[in-house]
């Protein structure tokens, strides 16, 4: 009987410890943001936590931590007097929390952006929108890491390296609709190497090699541009809008951190 009680209390103790750990984790979810990251990326500016301006869609579980589809949807269309200037994505517990900052113009039509990111841990991802009046608002989502053998690294880096710099635009149909937002997808082939590794295994340094700048224009007018970092998946992918007023040229200019530059144009017509 005594043993039984002892065992029971031990079980409770274990359960208690586990619960305490979980509670701690829940309370700590925002700690990195509150204590470090907010100040680091936005200084003393005030950020309103609200879904009034944007919505963030992230999977509850990072099925493939190397390729987590994330999308941000703007609540209002872009207008010359009222538009979203920038959407910044921060992944709190990644080795480099800054994932990307996307810049839009009234010509973007809609400040929606979808991309694929790497997640290294259980973490919040935040999207912070800055409107043209300088106000900041934030939405966040929690993403669980997946189980199993996967890692936030491209599956076939050699293939990505072999076609590095190759790009494509994909439109929703063959033709664009004039004077309204058209969705387009930019595919960029790049290995996106984070540079993180256990050096004593490889006995050679594999420096970081990733896309750090993207500029997209239509007939010379900027639609979307971005600063990006190692959280971008291998073969970065971006989905966004533009408003064509006539036939013309979509152009992508991409740079990486090793100074390589790539560009690509594609003609679109109504």
């Amino acid at each position, binding site marked *: 009987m005594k043993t*039984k009680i002892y*065992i*029971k209390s*031990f*079980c409770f103790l*274990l359960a208690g410890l586990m619960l305490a750990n979980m509670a701690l984790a829940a309370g700590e979810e925002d700690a990195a943001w509150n204590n470090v990251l907010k100040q680091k990326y936005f200084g003393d500016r005030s950020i309103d936590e609200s879904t009034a301006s944007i919505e963030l869609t992230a999977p509850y579980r990072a*099925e*493939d931590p*190397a*390729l987590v*589809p994330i*999308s941000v949807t703007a609540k209002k269309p872009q207008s010359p007097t009222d538009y979203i200037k920038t959407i910044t994505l921060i992944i709190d517990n990644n080795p480099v929390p800054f994932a990307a900052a996307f810049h839009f113009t009234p010509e973007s039509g809609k400040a929606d952006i*979808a991309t*694929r990111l790497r997640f*290294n*841990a*259980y973490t919040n991802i935040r999207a912070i929108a800055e409107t043209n009046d300088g106000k900041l608002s934030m939405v966040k989502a929690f993403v669980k*890491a*997946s*189980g*199993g*053998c*996967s*890692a*936030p*690294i491209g*599956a*076939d*880096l*050699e*293939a990505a390296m072999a*076609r590095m710099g*190759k790009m494509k635009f*994909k*439109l*929703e*149909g063959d033709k664009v609709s004039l004077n309204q937002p058209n969705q387009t997808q930019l*595919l960029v*082939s790049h290995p996106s190497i984070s540079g*993180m*590794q*256990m*050096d*004593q*295994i*490889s006995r050679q340094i*594999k420096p970081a090699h990733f896309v750090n700048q993207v500029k997209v224009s239509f007939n010379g007018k900027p639609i979307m541009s971005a600063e990006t970092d190692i959280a971008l*998946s*291998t*073969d970065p*992918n971006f*989905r966004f809008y533009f408003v064509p007023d006539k036939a013309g040229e979509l152009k992508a200019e991409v740079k990486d951190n090793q100074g390589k530059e790539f560009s690509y144009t594609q003609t679109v017509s109504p």
Partner: protein
Amino acid sequence: MFKRLICFAVFFSAFTAFAMAEELNLKEVATGVFVHQGIHALPDRQNHGEIANIGFIVGDRCVAVIDSGGSPAQGLALKSAIKATTKTPICHVINTHVHPDHVYGNIAFKEPGVSFIGHRKLTQSLAARAPYYLEKAGRDMGMTLKNEDFIAPDKSVDSIMELDLGGRKLILTAHGPAHTDNDLSVYDDKTQTLWLADLLFMGHVPVIDGSLTGWLKELEKLKKIEARLAIPGHGPVASEWPKAAEAETRYLEMLRNEIRQYIKQGKTMEQAMAQVGQSARGEWQLFDDFHKRNIATAFAELEWED
């Protein structure tokens, strides 16, 4: 009473995982070819990642270990099982690819006279994944690993390597990107046994961490090999070849064909992940844990096809 047992189980698994090497169940599937059958489960704190099929082949002069296990403790268990089976010394540890359930036992075999053999890309893949895997081992399995526990091959296979164990020859083949980008298969000449490790999944849904089209290509080549038996990385200890690859091939072809259609129709990765191939759910274990991730990996590959 039941609760009490569970509690004991938790207690023991938490505190004695590394202290005691459990006895390893092994089956001799062909003369001198021993396989331990894993379980269809995600690595966790109860199973310590000891989920894959692992084993060894005994020659007159040398034993070759094929995959060392999912934890240092399982590596030790495998080593003592080998010692209990044969007096022949262990000369080689062959790692079929980078995944933790196949390499975390390596440390148990590290000693003079033992060489570690892997695909030419294994070292780089291990180096890139180690920092992440280290953290994950703690998080998912409660396993504290050190940098030294990650052991890279000292002999690498560029395309083909013959290994003479004394009276039997192993043919090691380095494959193109398939299950991972560093898959190695082992063919035992003497018994015509084809040790495919994770190039072959049976029961456990295949996991694509390399290239979907590459995997199908490698399977085509492998099916031409005249083997009596094939040993999967996850599934029964041995099966008839090439029949053993039928279900896996069907699954991979289905994924390829459906995802190609989605891409052609301008659908997104998110849409594909939600919808593709759900009808195959009943055929596979751990489907919900890996199927969507397979779609993501395959989609990102196939959208570059044209």
